């Protein structure tokens, strides 16, 4: 059986960055596996710009962002298997691959999970009515329009205000469709404020908050939807139902880390992030299995996913050398008041750590506080905390001396 030092599963922004970084730091026995024919993952269909501001200090479209990494991949002669699925992953870090050449079992000393995420579908949320043609998730619509050259409709309602939905609102408008409205059940959008501004406001597309679709009408093709206003508890307000005619409904109701393989291998998954529970070396509960990018938690920027991939490359190298920090007393990191989740979920206290977190609600002029019981370890002011924006606080190794537990909260 072939044995590799590091196998990376998934060649999106996290996997590509991890593979190239490993080569840069002298780990040569690396295999990058991708299930699609083309590398790059979801960025292939993200033809809008706004990527790379942090990584490359300029604004790139998705395909241009990938191209930067593909050039490196060729220069570094990274071994790549595309059009190849990892069908099974086992706790001993062996795995079964399936590709056009057949099936093979291989083994890795270290595995990096970088499979990305998938979209929530209409089945995953509650929607009554028929299932006629013309109902798409935003990402599928994006693929149909941007890769396959298929126009999906003329009169469009978008349910959910995630970034992919907002980007598609603009894309459809530019292509000549009428986007009638974007409906969001929460009192705030889950997309980045800049996307509300440049994708909706620029084209006078209304965004209705605390509103949702309750029924899809039509038999063969969708003919319209019933939508309704929601009260503070998220319950439909009686009598507020209205009907709007449309031939297309896009769903942009959230992304979920894609962890079927991880689960099967016995990787513990966090109930809020939907991704593996990791420590400060991004290692899961299985020794030598790491996770980076959207498979770990859904990022708002491809740049962050790539940087996570690079960080994990460094830890994977140290794992191979046997120099990762060891401890019996893990410090648990808790998401406190006003915080949806914090990552990593446990830390050794022996290395600096960059805590990543999301707030639960939008607010203004708040402080993020990190505490060990009642002792304040760190405080940071945030001007516009928003659930759509990932925040971070760096905590130095020195500041972690004697710490028993950590809690991140908003004040």
């Amino acid at each position: 059986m072939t044995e590799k030092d590091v196998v990376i599963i998934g060649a999106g922004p996290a996997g590509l960055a991890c593979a190239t970084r490993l080569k840069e730091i002298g780990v040569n026995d690396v295999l990058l596996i991708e299930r699609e024919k083309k590398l790059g993952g979801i960025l292939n269909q993200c033809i809008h710009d706004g990527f790379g501001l942090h990584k490359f200090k300029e604004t790139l479209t998705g395909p241009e962002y990938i191209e930067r990494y593909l050039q490196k991949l060729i220069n570094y002669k990274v071994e790549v298997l595309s059009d190849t699925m990892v069908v099974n992953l086992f706790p001993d870090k062996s795995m079964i691959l399936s590709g056009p050449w057949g099936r093979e079992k291989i083994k890795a000393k270290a595995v990096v999970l970088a499979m990305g995420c998938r979209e929530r579908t209409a089945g995953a949320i509650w929607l009554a009515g028929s299932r006629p043609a013309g109902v798409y998730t935003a990402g599928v619509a994006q693929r149909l329009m941007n890769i396959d050259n298929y126009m999906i409709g003329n009169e469009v309602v978008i349910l959910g205000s995630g970034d992919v939905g907002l980007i598609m609102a603009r894309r459809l408008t530019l292509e000549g469709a009428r986007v009638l409205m974007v409906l969001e059940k929460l009192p705030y959008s889950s997309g980045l404020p800049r996307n509300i501004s440049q994708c909706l406001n620029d084209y006078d597309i209304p965004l209705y908050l605390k509103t949702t679709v309750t029924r899809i009408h039509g038999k063969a093709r969708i003919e319209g939807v019933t939508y309704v206003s929601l009260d503070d508890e998220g319950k439909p307000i009686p009598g507020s139902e209205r009907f709007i005619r449309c031939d297309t409904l896009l769903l942009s109701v959230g992304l979920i880390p894609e962890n079927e393989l991880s689960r099967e291998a016995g990787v513990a998954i966090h109930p809020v992030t939907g991704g593996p529970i990791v420590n400060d070396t991004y290692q899961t509960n299985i020794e030598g299995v790491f996770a980076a990018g959207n498979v770990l938690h859904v990022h708002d920027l491809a740049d962050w996913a790539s940087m996570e991939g690079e960080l994990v490359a460094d830890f994977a190298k140290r794992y191979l050398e046997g120099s990762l920090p060891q401890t019996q007393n893990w410090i648990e990191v808790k998401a406190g008041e006003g915080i949806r989740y914090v990552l990593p979920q446990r830390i050794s206290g022996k290395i600096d750590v960059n805590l990543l977190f999301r707030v639960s609600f939008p607010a203004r002029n708040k402080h993020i506080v990190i505490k060990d019981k009642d002792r304040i370890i760190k405080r940071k002011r945030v001007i516009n905390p928003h659930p759509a924006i990932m925040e971070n606080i760096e905590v130095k190794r020195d500041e972690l001396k004697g710490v028993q537990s950590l809690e991140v909260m908003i004040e």
Partner: protein
Amino acid sequence: MTKEMVCILCPNSCNLIVTQSDKNPDGLKVENALCPKGKEYAHNELFNPKRTIASSILVEEGELPLVSVKIDKPIPKSKIFEVMKEIKKAKVKAPVKIGDILIKNVAGTDANVIATKSVDKI
């Protein structure tokens, strides 16, 4: 006059508070910007709003039916749909290389439409 606007130049999405005084209409007071670009954005937004756009162009004999494109510099917001009209009319023959100029001086804006990916010939 005070206006709130979201700076779209980077994902920080700063919530700018822009105050325009009557005495000196060109001199804007911009609060809440995390970097100096916010002030420039507010100025452009009030006096000459610009955008870049991305789309795709039909490819003949390519491994893919479309090549993704963008314009290489921001254009006045009011020109967006004129530029889109030209992009929709265009057709290119494979192979296309990333960075190739596919339409020069699109809709008289002085911006070029360039390919953002490579598409090989089949």
